[in-house]
């Protein structure tokens, strides 16, 4: 392979250096960039499916009563929307796709520590995704439990929950192996001069995320395995008729699934932390504070799981403790937000599409985070628990946060990977349409939730019609914006003008290799790092 790297004069970079012909050059490749793109295209595909299901949910809720589907179909639709969006899009989204594409280059490595394991993770992801798809069509019908698979219903329903449990297990395994690979890579493969305090913040966020993936994901593995055992073997560890306790399922589920929220959002914060300094032409303000806050979020986020269970029947003392711990997570999150704003202060701001998406991340994530405090406080939570306020809140955090960061990453790094630039004007317009659609859709949800509309029903009382119709119209605007964005960016990366090695003026290592990068990135000449990732002066950008 090193021979090929030596002849990397071709402008197609790693695209022109397949080990095997045709599709085998992709599905048998251990190159981190090829695996990253495999993830990327799978993830984008599942995102589109998830969006489609979301649009169907909104269409059903356009009017009270049965509009386009009955209750059973509705239950299956929102379950699938949740499972696909969470397990196939948001969790692997930024780490598996952009982490694989960019992280090894950012630390000056030729690849990840275990390239074959990396490919194996992708196969696990695809098998898990396949299982999830099969669960839609096989025997018992699509799962109808919601993505949380709460017992006792999930243990009793005749739908394909067992298959979905296997799917979650496989996806979890894939996530663990990616995390393990990334932690080892960041520890062992940093190039000369890439000290811990010179690691770009995106890679730092992946590092914190990878630890959560390693430490939390096994718990969901055993939880769904026990659910599987209860359904298949009748070993009812959560079944009260056999002495089990369904609340224990909720505890185990959230011991993973709350830290998983940070698996979803930390990489997004990393993307934003990388983008803001570049488009402000200023070094990141409070680099160390952002690093420490990533670790602090990973740590504190592991201690707050039971705030999903205030109404499940815990002792008041437990509610109080978990409520307090939940508030502490707001501190490192706020540290990040203030540091981003301080970075932009008095910077020379370039309003390019990546920054626009990053800015909408900051605004929407902040709203999502603050509404999270409403839910974290036990008293208000009991009022709005299981209402559309919760749905609005987590869409602000997940879509407004991680989703926007994913789009920001696409606009920031895809020109690097494909070597071609999209149309920036269309990208800006699509950002505007997405932003407007997003706000109409999810703010309506929050308001209707405060008014008392419960989540997970296909029907509602006529008083809620107006806001629901507004939300549905918002979903259409959002969809139009998404189509515009994807068409523009994909036309751009395949037919756009050459982007050049450093289209945005970044100072981290990925901008020093050609676009697209050659197979082993730096080849035989491992780079020597002499300055920080946002030191634009010494990088010769300013």
């Amino acid at each position: 392979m090193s021979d090929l790297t030596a002849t990397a004069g071709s402008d197609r970079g790693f695209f022109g250096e397949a080990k095997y012909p045709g599709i085998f050059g992709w599905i048998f490749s251990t190159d981190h960039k090829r695996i990253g793109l495999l993830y990327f295209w799978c993830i984008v595909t599942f995102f589109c499916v998830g969006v489609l299901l979301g649009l169907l949910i909104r269409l059903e809720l356009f009017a009270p009563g049965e509009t386009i589907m009955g209750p059973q179909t509705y239950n299956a639709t929102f379950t699938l929307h949740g499972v696909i969006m969470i397990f196939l899009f948001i969790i692997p989204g930024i780490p598996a796709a952009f982490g694989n594409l960019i992280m090894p280059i950012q630390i000056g490595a030729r690849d990840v520590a275990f390239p074959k394991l990396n490919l194996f993770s992708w196969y696990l992801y695809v098998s898990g995704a396949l299982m999830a798809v099969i669960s839609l069509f096989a025997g018992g019908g699509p799962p109808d439990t919601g993505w949380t698979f709460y017992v006792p219903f999930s243990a009793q329903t005749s739908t394909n929950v067992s298959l979905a449990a296997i799917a979650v297990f496989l996806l979890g395994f894939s996530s663990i192996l990616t995390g393990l690979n990334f932690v080892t890579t960041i520890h062992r493969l940093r190039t000369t001069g890439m000290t811990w305090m010179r690691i770009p913040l995106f890679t730092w966020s992946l590092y914190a995320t990878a630890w959560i993936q390693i430490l939390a994901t096994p718990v969901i593995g055993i939880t769904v395995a026990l659910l599987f055992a209860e359904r298949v073997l009748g070993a009812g560890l959560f079944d009260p008729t056999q002495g089990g306790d369904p609340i224990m399922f909720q505890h185990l589920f959230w011991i993973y699934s709350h830290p998983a929220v940070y698996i979803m959002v930390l990489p997004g914060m990393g993307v934003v932390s990388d983008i803001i300094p570049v488009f402000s032409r200023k070094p990141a303000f409070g680099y160390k504070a952002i690093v420490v806050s990533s670790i602090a979020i990973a740590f504190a986020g592991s201690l707050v799981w039971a705030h999903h269970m205030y109404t499940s029947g815990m002792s008041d003392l437990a509610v109080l403790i978990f409520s307090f711990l939940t508030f502490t997570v707001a501190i490192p999150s706020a540290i990040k937000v203030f540091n981003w704003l301080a970075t932009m202060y008095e910077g020379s701001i370039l309003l390019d599409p990546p920054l626009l998406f990053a800015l909408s991340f900051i605004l929407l994530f902040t709203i999502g985070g603050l509404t999270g405090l409403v839910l974290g406080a036990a008293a208000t939570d009991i009022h709005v628990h299981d209402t559309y306020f919760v749905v609005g809140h987590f869409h602000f955090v997940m879509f407004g946060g991680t989703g926007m960061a994913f789009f920001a990453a696409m606009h920031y790094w895809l020109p690097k990977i494909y070597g071609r630039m999209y149309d920036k004007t269309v990208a800006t317009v699509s950002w505007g349409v997405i932003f407007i659609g997003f706000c109409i859709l999810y703010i309506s949800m929050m308001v209707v939730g405060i008014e008392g509309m419960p989540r997970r029903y296909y029907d509602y009382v006529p008083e809620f019609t107006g806001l629901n119709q507004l939300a549905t119209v918002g979903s259409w605007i959002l969809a139009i914006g998404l189509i515009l964005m994807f068409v523009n960016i994909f036309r751009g990366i395949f037919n756009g003008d050459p982007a050049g090695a450093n289209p945005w003026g970044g100072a981290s290592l990925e901008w020093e290799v050609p676009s697209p990068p050659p197979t082993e990135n730096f080849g035989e000449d491992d780079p020597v790092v002499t300055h920080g990732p946002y030191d634009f002066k010494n990088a010769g950008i300013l």
Partner: protein
Amino acid sequence: MSGHIHKDYTGAKFGMWLFLFTEVLLFGGLFILYSVYLARYPKEFISAGKELNVWFGGGNTLVLLTSSLFVAVSITALRRGAKRLCLGLLGATIACAAIFMLNKFFEWSAKIHHGIYPGSEHLKEMKHGEIVFFNLYYLTTGLHGIHVVIGALVLTWAMFLIKRDRVNANDWVILENAGLYWHLVDLIWIFIFPLYYLILH
């Protein structure tokens, strides 16, 4: 990837240790359930625990501990170039794994013969705490059994590589990682044995 780069042994072992953490946490879920249910049903756990045969459990503990010794010595043997000794010791380890599983098979068969297995009518008539105990017992030892089988397969694969000299006195990290995995299987049993067979007597 490139020829001139030596394998990163520290990295390979680091990755393996991380993987072992995840295994500990996987079993951790079951141990959490054990502790919660033990606190809830202390008497039933004791009465159910008495039904387990401490000789089966104790015997298997000895077998696993011995097998761990074999693995540890086999790594040293390979590093000193004693390839045949290493293969012999690994064979002994795998034999121990087989004895363990056979023992487990007889133990489970006896229990199942008495109508005690997850979902059985007899089990459902027992006290709640006892049902939980046996469900936990089957799931925990079952998951551990799966790990014994996987560990034995990994060691077989390592033996194959040693035979082909692809793992040798100068390049032995695969055997060491396989050995680490086997020690984990051992370690988890060290916790399972007292929790289910001993602590309640």
